[in-house]
């Protein structure tokens, strides 16, 4: 039985003149996601995109791949048949046989967008419903709370039959909102933050700070694994690894202990901004929360915010740890994140971190270092690596 995947756009349908661009971007992303499964031909009509397989690819795998594409509200797997009533009935009976035998009540919902088709939607529903009642003695019609809804769509290209939709990943297509640089530490929060912004259409690049010998190869490997785990949602990700040892040691030697973490974070933001500007990003993204750790107070955030001109997007700032962990589990990054390898943030932790710092104080303390030169050096020394969707 010939099958097709119906992709329903959600928000895109609201975008008016931009809709075409959004849809094209969505199709481009879908194509990339399906590359390893097989060849698909894409077409669009109204607010639905059709992915028709060429040959016989693994449709389960195709749906799984599309379930992580942002910009899709719902996905259906449908059988394709001729625009002929008899064919539609027979198709419904065959394609949905298993489900129809297992339920007691059903109804038929028809959408007819091909106005040249002789029957109207209610008539089609009645005919198909009648046919199914004849062939499945276990069934009754219930138009209010049916166990199963048989969907029939009569479009220009053909007729489609399916039962039920899978929820899509929601959001807007990656790439439609520009680019942003994500500060990724290896912890639980940053991958979640990155994917949340990707969901709003941003293409994500990663910036990670490595301080060998204080941080190990394994800590870097962990971040690489996290980035790879993000690719099904974010698409291709460029990861920049910044050599940070020199700066961390200079901070340790020239800044009072209580301010270590704050100054370190300011340097990270400046360097990330340097890379972001070079790579045409319009924003930074972090996994910062408020109140989780001593360095994440409002005052501390104010101090890190002042060093960058780019907006800093903090999507998980209002979430509880449990909520973030749940999202990390769904992304399959949680288990990787909790592996106990030292990252920069844990290297020189003060015993009594300053929780209510003032930006002016930090500016003064940083006079001891040649901030501009150190930032420039670090940005230039960052090593990039690309991670593709597998």
């Amino acid at each position, binding site marked *: 039985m010939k099958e097709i995947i119906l992709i329903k756009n959600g928000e895109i349908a609201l975008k008016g003149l931009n809709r075409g661009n959004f849809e094209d971007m969505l199709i481009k992303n879908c194509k990339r996601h399906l590359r390893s499964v097989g060849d698909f031909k894409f077409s669009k009509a109204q607010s639905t995109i059709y992915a028709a397989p060429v040959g016989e690819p693994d449709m389960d795998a195709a749906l799984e791949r599309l379930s992580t594409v942002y910009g899709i509200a719902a996905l259906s797997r449908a059988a394709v048949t001729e625009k002929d009533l008899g064919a539609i009935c027979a198709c419904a009976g065959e394609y949905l046989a298993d489900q129809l035998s297992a339920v007691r009540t059903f109804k038929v919902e028809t959408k007819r967008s091909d106005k040249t088709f002789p029957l109207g939607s209610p008539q089609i529903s009645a005919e198909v419903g009648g046919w199914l009642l004849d062939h499945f003695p276990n069934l009754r019609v219930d138009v209010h709370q049916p166990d199963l809804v048989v969907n029939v769509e009569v479009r220009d290209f053909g007729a489609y039959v399916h039962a039920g939709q899978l929820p899509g990943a929601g959001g807007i297509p990656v790439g439609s909102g520009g680019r942003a640089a994500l500060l990724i530490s290896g912890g639980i929060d940053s991958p979640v933050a990155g994917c949340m912004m990707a969901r709003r259409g941003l293409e994500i690049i990663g910036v990670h700070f490595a301080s060998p010998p204080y941080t*190990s*190869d*394994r800590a870097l*490997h962990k971040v690489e694994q996290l980035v790879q785990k993000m690719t099904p949602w974010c698409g291709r990700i460029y990861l920049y690894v910044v050599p940070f040892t020199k700066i961390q040691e200079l901070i340790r030697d020239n800044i009072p202990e209580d301010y270590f973490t704050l100054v370190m974070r300011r340097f990270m933001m400046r360097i990330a901004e340097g890379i972001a500007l070079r790579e045409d990003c319009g924003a930074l993204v972090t996994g910062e929360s408020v109140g989780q750790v001593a360095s994440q107070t409002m005052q501390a955030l104010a101090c890190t915010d002042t060093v960058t001109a780019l907006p800093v997007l903090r999507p998980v700032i209002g979430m509880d740890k449990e909520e973030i962990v749940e999202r990390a589990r769904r992304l399959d990054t949680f288990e990787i994140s909790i592996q106990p390898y030292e990252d920069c943030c844990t290297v020189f932790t003060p015993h009594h971190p300053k929780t209510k710092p003032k930006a002016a104080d930090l500016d003064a303390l940083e006079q001891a270092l040649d901030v501009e030169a150190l930032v420039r050096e670090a940005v230039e020394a960052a090593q990039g690596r690309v991670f593709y969707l597998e």
Partner: protein
Amino acid sequence: MRYNGTNGIFAALIFCAQEEEAFLEERYLDNSATTPVDPEVARYALELMCQNYGNPSSLHHKGFEAQLALERARQQAASVFSADPRRIVFTGGGTDSNNLAICGTALALRRTKGRMVVNAAEHASVLKAMDWCESEGWEVVRVAPLADGTPDLEAFAAAADARTALVSCMAVNSETGAVTDLRRLSRAVKAKNPKTLVHCDAVQAFCRLELNPKTLGLDFVSASGHKINAPKGAGLLYMAPGTRVVPLLHGSGQEGGLHPGTENMPGFCALGLAAQRMQARRAELWDRYTALRARLVTKLQQIPGVCINSPEGAAPYILNLSVPGWRSETLIHYLERLGVYVSSGSACSKGARSHVLAAMGLSDARIDSALRVSLGQYNTPADLDAFAAGLQQAMAEVARK
């Protein structure tokens, strides 16, 4: 000739092997017992012994490099099942995996000791593990195979009930090549009780048959390296998401705690590489085995007194035949002098009566004269011709019982 270091050892070994080969062309047709290691795989194993020899648990870079090799091996093995690498536990071999699956499940469910169902034609490691479960208070139902050697799926379904915790049935029988319809088995069993776990000893099927545990409904799958041209002493167990076993070994937590002990790096990594190589050639080799088997059967049909024990639809790389009136062991020794190596029953039984053939209900004469020809990737038509000719010769020269 001068060699140095590890290259020298390896080269010397090959040199010796080649010396012996000069006397007699080796026709090795006992690949279900074990297989020669693929030279590429052997080279890789050596690399893991002498160059990338770190302990994956070490914090330093040498340990990290080893860890990467182990991750790669796990990925290679998981790909055979189209599964996530976390589904794979590396073990010491097929027996180890079977024990972990069966006894590990028994221990996990020790509070509700219900029933286990097992195919009577399983490998000794499965049968003995089941015997142990029985001694611990489990009810074990042993299902005799059908006369053609395939598992009795109806009896399996009938024996599965609300109390059945686990059923075990191999994918391909090591003695006859009989192939189990695993999808039908798991469907029938899970229709009776959706919580019943299905264990499959796939030692003779791994990388030879299509094995997607998700589509086949398998919860545990055992595999072994030395059947796919990797060294002996390494195997794996696939565990479906949600399954839980209590480990049989206690130690430092390697393999997620399920198989502790410093990882057998040469073994596991060689297994991974061998699996990748074999899986890539699966279709090609299947076709080749089919052609070779057809050729052999044609020749055997021309020898009066030879009967085939393997059922229709058996895996093409295992052929079990009998020559009633002659003793298997005598024939085996006769053939070895011609350079042809085959076996009678399973190698593990060291010549004891085949419980599999007995379970099939074959006559004593057939069981006592059974020979097993099992193909590997290096076998050629000439190997089979030599076997057929040798068998004919043996039958002419060796006294009948």
